[in-house]
């Protein structure tokens, strides 16, 4: 059975598993396979999902995106040192050395077109979906952490301890590396990433999500008309997340 068909098969098995109450305990693990399979089929290379962050609208002290991400993806603080806890999205406070100008912005996986994490991953667990979302396949990640060494944005976290109370739609697990998935489970249902939704709800609307490839999309229009930048553009990774006002 090829990898692909195996996943399909497991995916189908996963759904059956979900239905059967006897297999309920297995569900989260199996379900995540079904997600990987179903959505890998669904992802289209015509689309490139991306995000635009308007730093002029983002406020220091506002943490709505971070909280929403934690709720959606069931990310709790670990029991170890804070330095060992996962952070898929974080707020960075910036102060320009020359001018003293202060900025606040969310930082997460930048979903590069040329992701260094994918290049270095020995097993291919780090991969880029056809629609540009960079993900970790939790089934073949061996936890070598080479991708964390390679990521220029410090976007990845390593799961340092066993996890409980997880969202069955969001596979996570001890010993694997993880990072922002752009809420792939929501995107595939036609929703926005949790952080973007929270930011809008909060009245700031500093985050805009959409298809960079679709000239009619709001994000594409904004990028075409306003000056935006990519973080560490010098590395030529062409991130899918862009910033305005830096």
């Amino acid at each position, binding site marked *: 059975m090829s990898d692909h068909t195996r996943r399909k098969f497991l995916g189908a098995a996963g759904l059956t598993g979900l239905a059967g109450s006897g297999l309920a305990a297995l569900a989260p693990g199996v379900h995540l396979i079904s997600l990987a399979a179903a959505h890998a089929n669904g992802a289209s290379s015509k689309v490139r999902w991306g995000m635009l962050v308007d730093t002029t609208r983002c406020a220091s002290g506002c943490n709505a995106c971070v909280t929403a991400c934690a709720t959606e993806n069931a990310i709790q603080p*670990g*029991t*170890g*040192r*804070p*330095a*060992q*806890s*996962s*952070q898929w999205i*974080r*707020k*960075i*406070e*910036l*102060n*320009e*050395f*020359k001018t003293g100008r202060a*900025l606040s912005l969310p*930082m997460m996986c930048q979903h590069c077109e040329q992701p*260094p994490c*994918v*290049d*270095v*991953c*020995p*097993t*291919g*667990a780090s991969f880029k979906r056809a629609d540009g979302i960079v993900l970790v396949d939790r089934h*073949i*990640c*061996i*936890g*070598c*952490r*080479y991708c*964390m*060494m*390679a*990521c*220029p*944005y*410090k976007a*990845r*976290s*390593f*799961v*340092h*301890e*066993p996890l409980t109370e997880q969202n069955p739609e969001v596979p996570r697990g*001890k*010993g*694997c*590396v993880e990072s922002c998935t752009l809420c792939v489970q929501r995107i595939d249902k036609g929703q926005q990433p949790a952080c973007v939704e929270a930011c809008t709800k909060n009245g700031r609307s500093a985050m805009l999500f959409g298809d960079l490839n679709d000239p009619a999309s709001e994000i594409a229009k904004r990028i075409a008309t306003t000056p935006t930048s990519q*973080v*560490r553009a010098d*590395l030529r990774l062409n991130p899918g997340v862009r910033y305005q006002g*830096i």
Partner: protein
Amino acid sequence: MATTIFRAIEAKGGYYALLGVCGLFLLLGAFGYFQMEHHGHVITGMDNQMVWGMPHVIALFLIVAASGALNVASTASVFGKTIYKPLAPLSALLALALMAGGLAVLMLDLGRSDRMIIAATHFNFKSVFALNVFLYTGFFTIVGMYLWFMLERRMNRWSSAAGMAAFIWRLTLTTGTGSVFGFLIAREAYQSALLAPMFIVLSFAYGTALFLLTLAATCAAARRPLGGMVVQRLKNLLATFVAASLYFVAVFHLTNLYFTRNHGVEQFILVDGGIISGVFWIGQVVIGGALPLLLLLAPGTTLGRILVACAAIVVGGLAQMYVTIIGGQAWPLDLFPGYAASSSFFDGEIHNYAPSLVEMLLGLGGFAIAALIVIIALKVLRVLPEKLDDAALLPQPGE
């Protein structure tokens, strides 16, 4: 030179005592591993800033040293220095043992060490790590065959060819190991093309030092006196390697200093890094470089002094790996050049690292694996020549 007769060493009380001590360290290493496996890396000093810790320091040291331990064999078979020929099997054995120890630690430090089979079946050919999986397994095969050809009389005629293959392979392998860092485009500490060649030169020094230590210990334990001539020559070789290493380290940092963008990280490693700077200057430069050079080059060398130098080189080697791996990660990534950054994820902060006991035990377990392989092989295989004195090793007149 008369035909060398190889003979297994005899096991006496001391042999089993040593076996026991190494076995104990192996058990402690296993304990460390199972603790980490059970609880996760939460019980280590590693975190999301310091993703590679002490196990990597020790593992990479062993792997780099493994390639260097092959020096003596290479000098014999590739460069035709007959004096080293009787020592070539021990050199190949040590190389295999160190590689096994290093790889074991590297594998057991994986977040999912239970998925080793995946590492062996899923490959992303763009990854240096995946490439290294091939280089490491190839190393075992080629050096293993080389050792076999040397030990098996009927295969002797192939041993030079195998020696050549092993020589080329291990240079590639060390380049691959050095390149692991070269691909980390955003980490300022590793922005140098010199890393891979520097690793090769360092491997010469580490491997030869470990070889001399192993040789001297084995000869003493097996009561087979070691000729002064061969020690003298190895000593000169070692001094050259240490000097070359120091030169490379100097050039590495000086070229980094040439680029203004690297000033921050260089200033950190060399001056402001606290423990890291201390380990660099005291561990890597003084203990690992200046001291052994002094001991090796000062007139009137004794075997004891050479061995102290070797031990110092090993300590210096571990220090070098610490500075490279830990120091390189301690320096924060600069996402926004020109800005001061702060966050809950420690952006813009120097990261600290304190290894926990379990990861130290795991690392030491790697040394134990290497030692056990050598000790057991010496007993069950005919690796060590019966006679190692000058008369036996030096070319006889008329040869």
